[in-house]
């Protein structure tokens, strides 16, 4: 209980929720209690690392590259009797269940992110070249041009100045998807969905589902795709395919 109280105090201090006397007392304790100071520093560093979405994304990209390039090396003594018996059993198993086994391996290797990349289409680029896209807002139009040129961060800063504009919201979502910042993308699509009656509803739902998927929120993604699959929208068959892929893993 004491530990929980202490942990809670640290959490509240780090997130700036301690007030007046509590804060003063905590700071005083920090000066005198080396262990407390170290615990606070550790948690601050961890939170600061994890809340840095861009850097975490970059580290994930690098870690994915590393995993793909790493080769697992097994040192096996092939002359061992036990190993020979074991190997023979494996061969028999593979022959019997070959097709099923291969199918399983194929499906189990598909990550959420793989499915996401398979289904994500850069609709932003498609939309920006369509003649019927006119926003009557020069900042948003400049943002769309920046998006078209792959300058997603700069595009977002222009879209941010028009938070009420649904087109800007949609493109902000696309930009964050391009930047692999799915948390932020979700917010934009949710905003559009909560706005209800608008022409971007289908796209917002579809891309919300994909963002959930890329961000490993499988259950939430499943819910969104199930809704899309139950309606007669443009993304129905794709949503059905994704659901099948998720279920077959």
């Amino acid at each position, binding site marked *: 209980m004491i530990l929980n109280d202490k942990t809670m105090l640290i959490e509240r201090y780090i997130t700036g929720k301690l007030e007046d006397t509590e804060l003063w007392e905590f700071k005083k304790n920090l000066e005198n209690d080396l262990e407390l100071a170290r615990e606070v520093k550790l948690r601050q560093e961890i939170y600061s690392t994890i809340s840095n979405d861009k850097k975490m994304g970059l580290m994930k990209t690098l*870690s994915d590259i590393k995993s793909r390039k790493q080769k697992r090396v097994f040192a096996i003594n092939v002359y061992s009797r036990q190993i020979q018996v074991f190997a023979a059993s494996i061969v028999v198993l593979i022959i019997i269940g070959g097709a099923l086994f291969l199918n399983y391996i194929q499906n189990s290797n598909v990550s959420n992110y793989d499915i996401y990349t398979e289904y994500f289409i850069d609709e932003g680029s498609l939309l920006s070249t369509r003649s019927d896209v006119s926003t009557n807002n020069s900042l948003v139009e400049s943002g769309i041009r920046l998006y078209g040129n792959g300058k997603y961060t700069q595009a977002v800063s222009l879209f941010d100045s028009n938070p009420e504009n649904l087109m800007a919201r949609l493109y902000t979502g696309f930009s964050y998807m391009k930047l692999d910042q799915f948390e932020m993308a979700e917010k934009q699509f949710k905003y559009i969905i909560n706005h209800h009656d608008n022409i971007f509803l289908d796209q917002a739902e579809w891309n919300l589902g994909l963002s959930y998927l890329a961000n490993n929120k499988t259950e939430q993604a499943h819910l969104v795709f199930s809704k899309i699959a139950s309606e007669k929208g443009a993304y129905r068959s794709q949503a059905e395919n994704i659901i099948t892929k998720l279920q077959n893993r």
Partner: protein
Amino acid sequence: MLQYKTQELLNGILENNRIIVQHIYDRNFQSIRKFIEKFGGSKDDALDVFQDGIIVIYEQLKSGDVKQINNFQGYLFSICKFKWFNILRDGKFSEITNIELEDILPSDEYEQISERWGEVMIKEERVKVYFNCFMELTSKCQQMIRYVAHGLDIEDIATEMNFSSVTYTYRKRQLCLNKLIELVKQRLNQINGISYDTK
């Protein structure tokens, strides 16, 4: 093969553009690997060093600490050399202590800035531990901790995660956080030079 300008490569790192990061890997990894293998390391060591090199560049770009880089390839290679020099100097590969470490010191061009690389690398050792431990958690726990780190209130976390009660969310949050902190402390204690006393 696509050619990118140096500025595009740097922006790609800053914005975590997977295509550009992969391109940087494709164009640079083999020379880094060759160098590290020549000086006693393995392919895995080279992969680690490449990762560290990119993160150092990211940190320098973020802090505005990097002046005009004319030769991206040379710059990344020098950082990786410097990183490997530090690993060898710290004696992690005892069988190759006799090699002439001076051979892999950064060139005069990078002598000054390599001090900053060293500072960033020390800091990043800890960050790498936090990242790796975080990635070992379940996706639900990762999500939960992301919300906590972003300062979301428990009620908002419950809503975002579709949890039925705040009490359950609170308990789950504590479990995830405790798991992460425990993993981090264990890992820091295991690594030479980075200690965290769990007492």
